């Protein structure tokens, strides 16, 4: 995508528009950015008419519904949010399953991809909870369509996007910083990820019989491939957006240095994790607390499982993705259990033990790396491991 002329034309047009239209003409600025972004999405992603209409229809449905439904923080916001996002969710789900099984309805998945769904649900819930005081449909359109982040994030919240559009970042004198971030991202994607690719799990997909040793090594290497691919992409998006004065939230914070699985998820795909935490894990936990008061271990366990199985499905509609989600949920449950069994002694946190941190970090990295086996290899491939 970054090597296509159409991508750079769309970015150049966004850059010019972002710098020419002053921030006090916020609606005009948002409208022009939305229009250029939509043109970029159509050309770069080669959308057909049905996909184009589904994207516009979904955005119109969400924004239209939010103009009609009033904020009600004390009401059943989760239920209302699910009802409002249901049509988009249904089309996305059918398309997702069709995509995984090569079914004729696979074009439905282009309803705006998984990222549009998360942004739609986040916006609906924030609006119902009163966190978005005034919703502007033009600004909303730009929020959904903003071209650099449309395909694979990082995902703004509506408030973040409105604020950065209204008060653009002053990037004067930061040219070298921005250029370095972009080239570093490009380098990660085009050199580091590509160089590691032949030794990673994806190289095993064509094997008839898959040697177990190769799978384990491939899993560790794939950790690097995925990180360089995704973090590199995020770096490029953040750099391109900063050049336009638009601040994009960070998506990665040295995730493989995390000493626990919970910490890993605070550092990996940060914008997705915060949406999952705010819109699935927390509301579900609150509901369970009302229904089963006092079950302090059971409630987060059910919350982890529901959240991560959804996260698995969000990545792909096949059994291996669901198992990958369950793998992380089990890891988090085991971690909670271990903390309950071996509670910290008073004053223990004040004295960091370097050796223990290294062991914990290595254990977390191993756990995450082995989890990628489920992420990459379909179940019939896993059955061929010898």
């Amino acid at each position: 995508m970054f090597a296509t002329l159409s991508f750079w034309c769309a970015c150049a047009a966004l850059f010019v528009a972002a710098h020419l239209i002053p921030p006090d003409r916020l609606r005009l600025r948002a409208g022009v950015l939305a229009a250029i972004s939509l043109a970029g999405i159509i050309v770069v992603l080669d959308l057909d008419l049905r996909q184009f209409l589904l994207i516009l229809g979904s955005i119109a449905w969400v924004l239209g519904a939010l103009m009609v439904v009033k904020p009600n923080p004390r009401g059943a916001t989760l239920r209302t949010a699910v009802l409002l996002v249901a049509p988009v969710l249904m089309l996305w789900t059918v398309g997702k399953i069709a995509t995984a099984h090569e079914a004729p309805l696979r074009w439905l998945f282009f309803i705006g991809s998984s990222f549009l769904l998360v942004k739609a649900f986040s916006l609906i819930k924030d609006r119902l909870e009163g966190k978005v005081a005034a919703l502007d449909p033009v600004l909303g359109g730009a929020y959904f369509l903003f071209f650099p982040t449309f395909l694979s994030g990082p995902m703004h919240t509506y408030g973040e996007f409105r604020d950065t559009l209204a008060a653009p970042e002053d990037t004067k004198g930061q040219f070298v910083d921005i250029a370095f971030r972009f080239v570093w991202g490009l380098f990660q994607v085009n050199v580091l990820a590509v160089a590691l690719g032949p030794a990673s799990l994806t190289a095993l997909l064509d094997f008839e019989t898959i040697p177990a040793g190769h799978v384990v090594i491939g899993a560790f290497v794939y950790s690097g491939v995925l990180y360089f691919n995704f973090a590199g992409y995020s770096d490029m998006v953040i750099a391109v957006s900063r050049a336009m004065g638009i601040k994009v939230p960070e998506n990665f914070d040295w995730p493989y240095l995390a000493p626990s699985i919970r910490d890993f998820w605070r550092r990996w795909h940060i914008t997705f994790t915060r949406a999952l935490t705010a819109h699935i894990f927390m509301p579900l936990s609150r509901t369970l607390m009302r229904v089963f008061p006092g079950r302090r271990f059971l409630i987060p366990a059910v919350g982890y499982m529901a959240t991560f199985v959804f996260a698995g499905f969000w990545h792909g509609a096949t059994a291996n993705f669901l198992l990958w989600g369950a793998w992380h949920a089990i890891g988090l449950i085991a971690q909670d259990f271990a903390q309950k069994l071996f509670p910290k002694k008073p004053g223990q946190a004040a004295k960091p033990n370097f050796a223990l941190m290294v062991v914990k970090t290595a254990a977390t990295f191993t756990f995450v790396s082995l989890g990628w086996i489920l992420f990459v290899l379909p179940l019939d491939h896993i059955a061929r491991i010898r």
Partner: protein
Amino acid sequence: MTGVPPALWLFWAFAGLAVMGVALAAASRKLSLPGLLTAREWKAAIQIAAILAMILVMIYFQNAHRYDASEFIYGRF
């Protein structure tokens, strides 16, 4: 380059750059080079050098065309 795999040349090139970097850092302490530029200017100079090095490696790999949205793991359509 007969008999020597290109990747090995790249390795030695990087090793050479690393040695030069260490030597320069040592010399700069001795010759008070930090005083020549401000911290911000040093940062920019190092970033520009890194950008040039990365661009050279990318040209060497010549694989910019390999990256495609449809191949990206989080964007399977």
